[in-house]
Every structure is written in structure tokens, then in C-alpha cells.
């Protein structure tokens, strides 16, 4: 693993900010591919765990971004990642608000939104893939993922309960594998 400087962190998260079409979950596959596989800032195991912890915390799930910043560069990394990630997309939004008045009723607005849906769906599916591949090191964890998927899909159990159950099963696996 290589530890990035604050400038590297700022540059990468500012670029990611402007690529985050479809929200935080759609950005997940690029976050993982870029930070773990191309830049080697953190292992895939750490990436998957930090993503899951950000999911378990209240707040927008994209809070995994400052969490990664902290993991790779401490408090400075946390703050730089937070600002670099939220500032560019916010400025773009402010600049767009006046144009939007004229654009929202044009047919292009509806067309672009229809075009964006399958792309977002594909990106979220890719993000699911990167977390599953990083987290499921053996059959035991594959079973936890499958159980979690089925529970969320076919029951109304709260996602937080599902994550907590995953943690408990993970600890149980310690004895199971020993």
C-alpha cells in the first residue's frame, strides 16, 4: 500500500465528485477500482469494511469518502477528502440552478433522465460486485451475503439489523473456522 499526500487526496476526490452521476452508490465501483486497485491506497478488505461501516452509520452513505481519507492520512486526510469531495459538485449545482429553470421542461431533460437510469443501475450492480468480491473471502462470507440479500429482498427487516447480524455471524465464524 502507498500512502498518498493531501494533494493527491484532494485531486482524486475532486475528480470523483464530478463523476458521481447517480449518487454515491453509483460511484462505488470507481472508488474501489481507483483507490484499491490502481492507486493501492488501501486493501480491498479495508475498502469493503469501511464502506460497510459508513453504511451502518447515520448520514449520507457517501460518508465512506472522508472515512477513507482518514484511514489513509489521518485527520488531515479526513478533512481534505470531505471538502474536496463535496465542494466541486456543490459549485456545479449552484451554477446549474439558473440554467435549470429553462432546461427542466425541455424534452432533453426527460431523455437524459431516461438514459441515466440503466447506467446508474449498471453502476450500482458493479459496486455490489466490487464489495462482494472484496468481502467474500470464503464460502462462509458468501453465505452471509446471500442471507443478507434474501432477507432485504423478501422481508421488511431494517438494513441496520442485517448488518449487525452479519457482524455477529462474522464473529461466530471465528470459532467455526478454528
Amino acid at each position, binding site marked *: 500500500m502507498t500512502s498518498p499526500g493531501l494533494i493527491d487526496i484532494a485531486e482524486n476526490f475532486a475528480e470523483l465528485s464530478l463523476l458521481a452521476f*447517480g449518487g454515491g452508490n453509483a460511484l462505488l465501483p470507481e472508488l474501489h477500482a481507483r483507490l484499491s486497485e490502481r492507486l493501492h491506497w488501501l486493501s480491498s478488505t479495508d475498502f469493503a469494511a469501511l464502506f460497510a461501516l459508513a453504511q451502518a452509520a447515520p448520514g449520507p452513505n457517501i460518508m465512506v469518502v472522508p472515512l477513507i481519507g482518514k484511514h489513509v492520512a489521518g485527520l488531515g486526510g479526513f478533512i481534505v477528502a470531505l471538502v474536496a469531495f463535496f465542494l466541486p459538485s456543490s459549485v456545479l449545482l449552484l451554477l446549474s440552478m439558473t440554467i435549470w429553470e429553462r432546461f427542466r421542461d425541455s424534452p432533453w431533460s426527460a431523455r437524459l433522465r431516461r438514459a441515466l437510469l440503466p447506467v446508474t443501475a449498471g453502476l450500482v450492480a458493479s459496486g455490489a460486485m466490487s*464489495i462482494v468480491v472484496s468481502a467474500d473471502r470464503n464460502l462462509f462470507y458468501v453465505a452471509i451475503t446471500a442471507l443478507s440479500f434474501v*432477507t432485504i429482498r423478501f422481508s421488511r427487516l431494517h438494513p441496520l439489523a442485517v448488518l449487525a447480524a452479519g457482524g455477529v455471524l462474522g464473529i461466530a465464524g471465528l470459532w467455526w473456522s478454528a
Partner: protein
Amino acid sequence: MTSDLQPARPAPSRLDLFLGFGKLGLMGFGGVLPFARRELVETRGWLSAAEFADLLGLCQFLPGGNIANLSIAVGYRFYGISGAASAICGLLLAPAIIVFMIGEVYDRFRDLPVTRHMFAGIAAGAGGLLLALAFKIAEPLRKDLRGLLVLALVFGTIGVLHWPLLPLLFILLAVSLVLNGGTRR
């Protein structure tokens, strides 16, 4: 006086924006948007239902987290830049502190066998959540062959081959626009 359909409500102060979005940030688990609608439209009356739908449309359209974008847009409507700053700082402050403390716990205990297995179990569970989310988002495309084709193309290049999102995103969007952007009923 003629009665309006909606009772007039006083505009929120910057502090109201900070606190209101702060509450949303803390409620926000597993999808803040349904909460956001109830809070902003029904409980607080800062936006009409139509205004909410319009701003959300803009926010979903642009890059960035939907709820973070929404806080900026709503804050900006009332007080310009300083309103936008109040709203997003309110939204992010408490979650940032919480997530920082979680990071502290993770970095300190990630090497212990018990916590390592616990974190791995939580991560495996989160994989299942995301898979379920992907299915839910893809649901409207079930009978839409061209939509599914784009989904498969995105998944193949990004999910399987791990190609970089820049410039691929813009190529994929253009392909999707050609295939799915036509006027359909």
C-alpha cells in the same frame, strides 16, 4: 382575506436550515429521500410538493450525493450561498463526527481476530444490501431490452473489467442516450 390552499409559513432562518438538515443527516439511514420529503414538504413546509420534485429532479441529474445536493439547492433558494453553506454543514457535521469516531475504532482494532471477523461479516452483509439495491433500481427495466443492454454494458466494462469511469461514463451515457433517449410512451 382569501384563504390560500397552503397556510403561509415563515421562511426558515439559516439556523433553521442548519438544524433541519442536521436532523435529516442523523435520520438518514438506508435512504434519506423519503424522510427528506416528509420533513421538507409536510412537516416544515419549506417547499411545496411540486418544488420538492423539481429540485430533486435537478439534484438527481447532476453529480454528487442526492441529499447533499438537495441541501445545497434548498439552502440556496432561501439565502443564496450562505444558506447553501448552512444547510450542507448542518447535514454533514454530525455524520462526519460519528464516522470519524468509527474510523478511529476501525483503525485501532482492525488487526484483532475478533473485530477483523466482525468487520468482515458486516462487509459481507453490506454486499447483500447493495445487491438488493441493484435489483430494486433495475426493476423498472425488467421488460426493457435496450435498457438491460446498457445495464449489461456498464456492468461488463466497469463491474467486471474495472475500466476507469473517466472517460467511459460519457461514452456509456451517449450510448444509452441513443438507445433509450428516444420519445417513448
